[in-house]
């Protein structure tokens, strides 16, 4: 097994180097996903299957999708860059040709080598310092694993990780969920409003870019492609069931709300890429769903105080059911949060900024929807099909 571990470590180093050294951003993202998968394997080898699940689902899967989405939007924007204000163009250039800019800024090869040397020495120094600190650390004053093992019978849940996350250290998890909620609120508020006139032009340009990007990611007739549609229809229920299983499994073995939420988000992302626009049509419900997990968690945490208990201290005998209830709600909200970060990212043609255009597409597409497959303009076709489904 030691040979496998060494190979794994070398592979991770190579993948990390690939992320930083590939001139093509697409290749860098692919290397990033590869790195995530290898990292998940490394967590497995370190006997941390919970982390492995989270890394594979969120680190490699969803982050990779978000990065690819961003890249395709940026590229589509770059081709249509003439319509954008200068600030946006500057931003675009920073993102899409960072390496080219960096190369321009370098005055000569020797300068670059010197910089590499300095960074390399600094990294080596930090590595040695960290190793030294690790070897010189004192024995832990408190044996946390044995404390967890002692506490498990009262925790109401068998799996130590879930017990730590939702009972012993539930305060941290509560704040984590709050951070996620804030992140998605910021993400949603970054959407470009279309009601103010001066921003109308870049907004529509962005929507166009997003749609064009989607035409680049999948075939432009996404929702109408019979193979993709049939595959998606069969795959999504399976992914959702797996999500439920992972949530349920979290009480006795690796699994839990975050991993299950990531799977639910993945189902949404697959649906979105296949041309189904679910999230955009239930805006109010979506907002409710986003806060539901945090709200339930906070309500349970605070309502135990009525019985004279401290904040987040579950009543005896109720811990198991309460934890599972909180986890189920968290799964739903985390799934929606991760999905929203993907579906409602800035530049998306989704509601509410596209409501007017959506409506016009709707009326237009009733005429055009009987066109043959594939000869449709990339413009708003995905949206039109989503409306028809």
């Amino acid at each position, binding site marked *: 097994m030691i040979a496998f571990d060494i190979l794994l470590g070398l592979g991770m180093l190579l993948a990390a180097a690939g992320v930083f050294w590939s001139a093509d951003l697409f290749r860098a993202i692919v290397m990033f996903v590869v790195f995530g998968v290898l990292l998940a394997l490394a967590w497995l080898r370190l006997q941390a299957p919970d982390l492995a699940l989270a890394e594979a689902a969120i680190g490699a899967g969803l982050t990779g999708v978000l990065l690819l989405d961003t890249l395709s939007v940026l590229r589509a924007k770059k081709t249509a860059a003439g319509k954008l204000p200068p600030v946006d163009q500057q931003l675009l250039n920073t993102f899409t040709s960072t390496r080219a800019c960096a190369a321009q800024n370098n005055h000569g090869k020797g300068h670059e080598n010197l910089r590499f040397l300095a960074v390399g020495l600094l990294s080596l120094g930090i590595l040695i310092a960290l190793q030294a600190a690790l070897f010189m650390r004192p024995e832990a004053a408190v044996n946390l694993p044995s404390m967890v093992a002692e506490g498990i019978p009262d925790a109401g849940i068998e799996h130590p990780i879930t017990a730590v996350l939702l009972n012993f250290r539930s305060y941290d998890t509560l704040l984590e969920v709050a951070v996620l909620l804030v992140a998605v609120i910021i993400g949603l508020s970054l959407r470009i409003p279309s009601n103010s006139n001066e921003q109308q032009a870049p907004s529509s340009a962005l929507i166009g870019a997003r749609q064009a990007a989607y035409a680049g990611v*999948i*075939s*432009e007739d996404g929702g109408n*492609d019979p*193979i*993709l549609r049939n*595959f998606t229809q*069969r*795959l999504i229920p*399976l992914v959702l069931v797996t999500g439920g299983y992972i949530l349920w499994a979290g009480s006795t073995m690796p699994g839990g709300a975050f991993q299950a939420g990531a799977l639910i988000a993945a189902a949404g992302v697959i649906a979105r890429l296949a041309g189904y626009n679910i999230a955009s049509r239930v805006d109010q419900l979506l907002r409710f769903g986003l806060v539901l997990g945090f709200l339930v968690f906070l309500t349970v945490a605070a309502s135990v105080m009525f019985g004279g208990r401290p904040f987040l201290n579950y009543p005896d005998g109720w811990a198991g059911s309460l934890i599972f209830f909180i986890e189920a709600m968290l799964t739903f909200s985390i799934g929606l949060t991760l999905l929203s970060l993907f579906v409602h990212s800035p530049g998306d043609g989704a509601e509410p900024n596209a409501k007017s255009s959506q409506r016009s597409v709707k009326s237009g597409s009733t005429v055009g929807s009987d066109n043959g497959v*594939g000869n449709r303009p990339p413009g708003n076709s995905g949206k039109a099909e989503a409306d028809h489904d």
Partner: protein
Amino acid sequence: MSLLLTIVQTILIGTGVLFFLVGSIGLLRFPDTYTRIHALTKADNLGLGMLVVGLLPFANSPQQALKILLCWVLILAASSVSAYLVANKLQNEEPDA
């Protein structure tokens, strides 16, 4: 009996890995997207099937065996659909190819 099983398993897994290797070499060496898809999906799916068959006797319980089979079906479906999507996209972009 168990020795025979081990030999058969070793052969199956070894051939499976070999097919993966050949598929990956094909991915790197073939000139255009269509041939690369061909190399990847054909060779890798065959290799995957051999790996699955080779791993099945290792399964500790029927549930685990079913999970391995489920993985097999899912990977087959995903790889064939993604191969189709890539090829279809390419076909739409350059109809002459």
